């Protein structure tokens, strides 16, 4: 009985082992494509070992294309343009690509194998995504639950991003929290300052990262983050700009306005800041100076629950009814929203009903 079991195991194991060995040897001989060169955007050349997928090869070289499925060809996020090399379009990619993309040589990088020299085009932004280390040089209290951090970069010492993008801040293990987490926060400083970034962070009850920022983080502490990410940018048009953001959603708007102010923008702009009460207002002086320096910019704070009616002679209730004060021509207005998914859905619905085209509404939604 025992011998039967043992011989069975030995035979199955032996055969599987033999075949596995055969495959390993075969892989060494057949799947060895030597060194190949990946040309990225015609600017950078990577010397890599051929044989694996473009996505994983790029990842190994610290260029991170988005991918949700981990390279199985089921999410369709890892698209990039392949100018030469990479073989023909595969049936496994087709369902994820539009006719225009196919014409444009867009491929799923997880399905493209690097077997020969290959030339690809990826958005410049992805190049910039990397790990940063910095020191907290300043922590400002804006309200009872909102702080603004200034992080001076130490390694590397420069960051390039677009106003409106965000970074993922990593919180370390602290107190009873045994895990490191990373959370996304919009950069609130202008991209003109490349040696530091600012983040506006609102305390989330029981939030791991925000509790760390609010209760544990001190000036002089070292922090790390990755970024920049996101596609919430200022569109380079001449349309009127309607900004809507409350709470810490003010961060990307602040970055955008600071950037526009530095360029003496004359575009018509209106920023509707929705808050509950007076104690939730912050950075009002800064926005007031921008109202003076940019003649076409107006700041509209709106309080949904004024603490005492008499104390506030400004706008009351929800922000949406006040949009009429700003909107002149719905076909020449772009909207930039930042806030919770619920707020964004409500504002988008309202703006669309007003006649603003959906494709001109840009937003950054945080849960």
């Amino acid at each position, binding site marked *: 009985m025992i011998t039967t079991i043992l*011989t*069975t195991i030995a*035979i199955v194991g032996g055969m599987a082992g033999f*075949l596995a060995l055969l495959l390993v040897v075969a892989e060494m001989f*057949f*799947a060895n494509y030597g060194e190949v060169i990946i040309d990225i955007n015609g600017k950078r050349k990577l010397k890599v070992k051929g044989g694996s997928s473009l996505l994983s090869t790029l990842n190994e070289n610290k260029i991170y294309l988005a991918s949700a499925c981990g390279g199985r060809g089921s999410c369709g996020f890892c698209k990039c343009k392949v100018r030469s090399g990479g073989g023909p379009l*595969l*049936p496994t990619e087709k369902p994820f690509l539009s006719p225009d993309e196919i014409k444009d040589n867009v491929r799923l990088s997880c399905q493209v194998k690097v077997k020969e020299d290959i030339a690809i085009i990826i958005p410049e932004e992805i190049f910039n995504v990397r790990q940063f280390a910095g020191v907290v040089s300043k922590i400002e209290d804006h309200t009872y639950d909102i702080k603004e951090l200034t992080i001076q970069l130490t390694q590397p010492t420069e960051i390039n991003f677009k106003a409106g993008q965000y970074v993922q801040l990593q919180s370390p293990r602290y107190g009873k929290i045994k895990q490191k987490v990373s959370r996304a926060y919009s950069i609130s400083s202008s991209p003109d300052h490349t040696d530091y970034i600012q983040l506006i962070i609102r305390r989330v009850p029981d939030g791991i990262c925000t509790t760390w920022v609010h209760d544990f983080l001190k000036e002089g502490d070292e922090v790390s983050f990755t970024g920049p990410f996101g596609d919430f940018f200022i569109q380079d048009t001449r349309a009127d700009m309607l900004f809507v953001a409350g709470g810490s959603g003010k961060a990307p708007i602040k970055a955008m306005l600071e950037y526009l102010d530095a360029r003496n923008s004359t575009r018509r702009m209106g920023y509707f800041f929705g808050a509950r009460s007076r104690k939730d207002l912050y950075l009002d002086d800064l926005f007031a100076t921008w109202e003076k320096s940019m003649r076409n910019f107006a700041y509209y704070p709106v309080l949904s629950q004024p603490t005492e009616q008499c104390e506030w002679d400004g706008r009351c209730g929800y922000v949406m009814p006040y949009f009429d004060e700003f909107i002149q021509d719905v076909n020449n207005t772009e909207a930039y929203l930042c806030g919770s998914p619920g707020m964004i859905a409500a504002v988008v619905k309202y703006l669309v009903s007003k006649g603003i085209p959906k494709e001109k509404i840009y937003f950054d939604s945080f849960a």
Partner: protein
Amino acid sequence: MEINAFIIFIASIFTSNILLTNFLGMCSFLSVSKEVESSVGLGLAVVFVMTLTTALNYVVYHMVLVPLNIVYLQYIIFIIVIAAFVQLTEMMLERFSPVLYYSLGIFLPLITVNCAILGVSLFMIIRNYSFLQSIAFGAGGGLGWLLAILALAGIRQKVRYKFVPKGLQGAGLSMIITGIMAMAFIGFSGIVVIQ
């Protein structure tokens, strides 16, 4: 069993089609039958793999499993042999014949675990086929599978332009079509008997 290998070959294409009479290999059959072009690619890959793994498994069974008296291990051994063979074929194709790789090779991973392929190897043992008969059975079984997926893909391409009730779109309608095709193939039954 003394049946002419050629009869087995013809019979396994039509009268005892592995897919339409045994309903084996359904998952890749349903998922890759949207277009005629890719279904032919997958079908040809199945023909190739089925023919060769049947031959390979015949040799393994009669040279290894029977002498060692471990025929009860046929399932696991057959699976390992098929998987290794498919992997090796894919590697070689990719290296030496890129054209063939891009038309057939990319489907190989899909059929590593195709039950029709294992099914043919197991039937060959149950039915006591000789080596020649087994090869004919493997090749015929593959061609039968190709015929079935080609027919389904052709029909699905037509259906694409027709109204299909929401609940039946995709796999639902494909199953019904397959069922009707299987019934049509019953027309061939009884002409020859191979089992």
